[in-house]
Structure formats: C-alpha cells, structure tokens
C-alpha cells in the first residue's frame, strides 16, 4: 500500500533569537501516514525544537529565524495559524502538570472542544470516547491535580485527542512518571498508532522500549539528523551512537562488545530486542 507523506521538512534551519548558533541545521525529513517514529538525541541536541516546528509553535510563537519549509498534511506551517494546526497535530510534553488548567477531568478535555465551537451534545460523546481511549473512564469529575503522574499525562493526551489530530507528538512523555505510568503511556501511544492509524512522533531516552515499538528511529545530534532508518538498521551503528554519547539497547551492546573482541560471526546483525537476543545468543551458546 502506497502511504502518503504527512510531515515533509525541507532545508529547515532554525536559530533562536537569543542564540548565535542554529538549534536545527538543514533538516530534510519525510514522515509517512501511520508511522511510529522515535527521536533520539542528547539533551540540547534539538529534539524539542524540531517537535515544536511540527505544531507551528515555531515559527509562530517562538522568537527566532527560520529557513526552509515544514509541510504538515500538505499545508505549509508558515501559512497556518497554530490554532488550525492543533486540529492536525496533537502534542504533549514531559511535564503534564503544566498542561492542565481545569477543575475536572471532563472540563480539561472539553476545553479544547469549546474553543472549536463544538455543540454540547456532541461534546459529551467525544469526551467519553477519548477518556476511554486513554483509560480514564469513570474519572470525569476528578480534579486533574488529584491524578497520578501517569494519569495526568494520559489526560494531557486525551485533551489533545479531542481535536482528532492525524499526528501525535510526544516530547519525553514518560520522564516524570512511575514505571506503571510509563507502561500506560507507551501502551496508549501504541494503541493510537495501531488501532487509530495515527502517526506518532516521540522523543524518548528509553532505547530498549523504542527498539520494540518504533518503525523508525531518527537520531539528532547538534541540530542535525545523523541517522534515520528502521530501528534494526540504526542500532547497528553502535560506534557512531557511542561517540555521540547515546546508549543502545543492552542486548545490542552485548553483541557489539563481542564484535570488538573478535568473537562475533561476521554478517550477523546485532539483536535489538530480547526476542532477537534469545535467538542469536542461543546459537552462540550452543557452539561453545
């Protein structure tokens, strides 16, 4: 099936008004409908800056100089108000508390809909539906601030979902939640992608989880894209990733260390998941 490009970035360079050096340099990138894309990079590499160009906050709300073109679902972001882009691109950040403002969970979700001028009757159904998707059914009347970190983050996701975006962007969404919260957020992201066909773009430090979930991994370093491909391909570049200072999945690291010691069978790909490791290391073990 031919998939259509949903995010097209061409020759993008962005320099914050307060900075001398550009935060993003000559980015060229195409993301297709229904992809699950993981964005990896050190703190300060440009991940958040890149994500903010997807919902138009850059260039519309952040001072700086932008060159190049960002096209979302065929529309140039430069020509689209942020309010309009919010219907196509939903975004959540690392700190859910900063994104919540209302007295109840239901009001929080309704907030975006009211801004769109959706009729009351329709609103009720939509709220019910999105709270179901993120697993917060029954908590309609709860205060957002009485929720756990993981629940708050899922509420932030629900609030963005009511706009029925085609693209969901998450900037380190699990940084401030406990292990159950992490699992819940990764599950919701996967569900949006697989069951609702949304394009998901997520920046994350948890490489092992991304090795399992993502269709594509993009590595950004000092404002430039240095690797872009299937996780299996990208995580083969252990030497480059280590030079940058990034981690690879632990089972990949195992294979790489054996390779450095001359104990790896030439031609074998490094495993990136537990399932792959069980296969490839099983063989190695029996050869001993």
């Amino acid at each position, binding site marked *: 099936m031919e998939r259509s490009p949903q995010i097209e970035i061409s020759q993008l360079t962005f320099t914050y008004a307060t900075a001398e050096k550009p935060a993003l340099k000559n980015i060229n990138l195409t993301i297709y409908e229904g992809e699950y894309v993981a964005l990896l990079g*050190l703190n300060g590499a440009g991940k958040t800056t890149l994500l903010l160009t997807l919902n138009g906050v850059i260039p519309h709300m952040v001072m700086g100089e932008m060159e190049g073109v960002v096209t979302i679902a065929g529309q140039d972001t430069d020509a689209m108000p942020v309010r309009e882009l919010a219907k196509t691109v939903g975004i959540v950040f690392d700190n859910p508390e900063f994104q919540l403002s209302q007295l109840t969970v239901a009001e929080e979700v309704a907030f975006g809909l009211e801004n769109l001028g959706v009729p009351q009757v329709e609103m009720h159904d939509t709220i019910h539906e999105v709270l179901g998707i993120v697993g917060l059914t029954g908590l309609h009347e709860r205060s957002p601030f009485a929720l756990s970190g993981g629940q708050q983050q899922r509420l932030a996701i629900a609030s963005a979902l009511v706009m029925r975006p085609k693209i969901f962007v998450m900037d380190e969404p699990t940084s401030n939640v406990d292990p159950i919260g992490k699992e819940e957020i990764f599950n919701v992201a996967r569900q949006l992608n697989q069951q609702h066909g949304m394009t998901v773009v997520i920046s994350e430090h948890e490489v092992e989880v991304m090795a399992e979930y993502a269709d594509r991994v993009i590595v950004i370093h000092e404002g430039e894209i240095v690797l872009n491909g299937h996780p299996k391909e990208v995580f083969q570049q252990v030497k480059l990733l280590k030079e940058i200072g*990034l981690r690879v999945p632990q089972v990949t690291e195992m294979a790489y*260390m054996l390779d450095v010691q001359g104990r790896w069978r030439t031609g074998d790909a490094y495993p990136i998941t537990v399932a792959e490791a*069980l296969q490839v290391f*099983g063989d190695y073990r029996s050869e001993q």
Partner: protein
Amino acid sequence: MTSTPLITCDHLHHVYARGNVTALNKVNVAIHQQEIIGIIGQNGSGKTTLVKHFNGLLKPTSGRVLLDGQDTVKRHVQELAAYVGYVFQNPNHQLFAKTVEEELEFGPRNMGLSDEQVIERREKAIEFFGLQQYRSHHPYRISFPLRKLVGMASVYTMQPRVFILDEPTTGQDNITTRTVYRLIHRLRDEGKTVICVSHDMILLAEVVDRMIVMRNAQIIADATPREVFADSAVMQSTRITPPQVTEFGVQYTQHRTRPLADVGPARTVVLSVQEAIDALFIGPKG
C-alpha cells in the same frame, strides 16, 4: 554490619490526617554509613513519605525514627537538615540565587559558618561537581542536567552525612546520567550514605548495593538488586520492568535446558551487559 545504623525506623507508622490515609504501615528499616540504597515503588506506595521522615520533614504518627541513635522528634528540623540533605527531583524547586556561586554560599552561611569556611565549602563543591565554568552563571540559564548538579552541590556544601536524591537521573541523557552515577560513588568514597528514590533501572542494577521496594505503605523487599530482580513475585506485584539484559537472562534460562552461568547468589540473574557476556561465554566460576 555491626556499626550503629545512621538511620533506624522502628515500627514507623504515618497516617496523613487529611483523608485518614495510612502512608506507612509499621515500617522497620536500618540504614548504615556508606550504603548506596535505591528506593523504588509506584506513586503512592509510601516512598516519599518514608524519606521525608529521614530528614524530619514529617514526624511519625507512631513508632520512632532514630538518627545516629537519637529520636528525631527531639531534634530541630534545621539540625536534621544538616545531617540528612534532600536533593529535589526538580531543581527549580530548590534554586533561587542569582549565580551558581551565591547558590553554593547560601547553605553554609545559613549554618553560621565564617566567611572563610563559606568560601572553602563553596570551592569544594565547585571542584567536586565540576562547576568551574559556571560560577557566575544564573542557575536558571544553564542546562537542566547542570541545574540538577547545582542542586546536588548546594546540598553538598552543608556536608550532610546522608544524601537523599529524588529521581537524580530522570529526563537526562546517557552522558549526564553516567556523570551522576560517578558522583554517587564519589560521595560514598567520602563516607556519605546515598539514598536514591529512583525508577532508573540501570541505576538500581549497576550502582546501588541495596534495593528497598515499597508497596501499599510497606517495605515488601529489602535486599541486593540481584536478589530483588530474582524475586518474580515482587517484580510482578510491583510491575517493575527489569533492565533488558536481566530480562534476557531470565528468559534465556526459561527457554534453554542449560541455564546461564552462575554469576552470583541468585542464580541466572545478570545485572549488566558485562555480566551477561560473562555468563554466556565464560561459564560458571570455580
């Protein structure tokens, strides 16, 4: 260990008046000098309530907390703060001065030390945390990982015997995370006790000597990381996902007739990439 514990909780019970919620249910624990301890548990399991008793921010509803043998109820919060330092998860909740240097002078000055001593403490902290380049920077205009280090450094200036680090590595990349691991070891080398409230599985597997697992206001496991990761009942009830190599080791043993080599008291549990390689290829020791 035979030394007197630095911190002892004896049937520590805490009920939050609001909502009548039991946050700690008769907890017993002893913490010694130079231990590196990881405390893990889901939100609401009681871990924050527990560590807030260590520095006297909370007082027991019943039971006792002893610091160096003395009941915390009888000591001032300020005195306790000099004994047990608390580094916040979010450094913005902790930092307020205009420069890093000023930030690092505040604690010692507040303790009533002389100007000379204040400067000595400040310089020692700058050296220890490698902040030489950032002396005159505004704490809010440096990167998040550096701000976390300034938060740790400001507690270090007060030279407490115990450091409580609340999620010291969250939101950080691999480079800054490794820096934090090294600093935790250096603190221990200086004789400090370090307690990390953390969900960073690599920190728990490779850095701490002891893991305390909390659930429903109680400690459900208090053992080495290897023993905790080997305890499938604890892992399942708390829904903690172990490091990828540990999971690999467990599944490997389930799927093969020949288990991974014996790498420790809890057989087949590997905690690091190197251990996994050793277990696979070198075989049992001895």
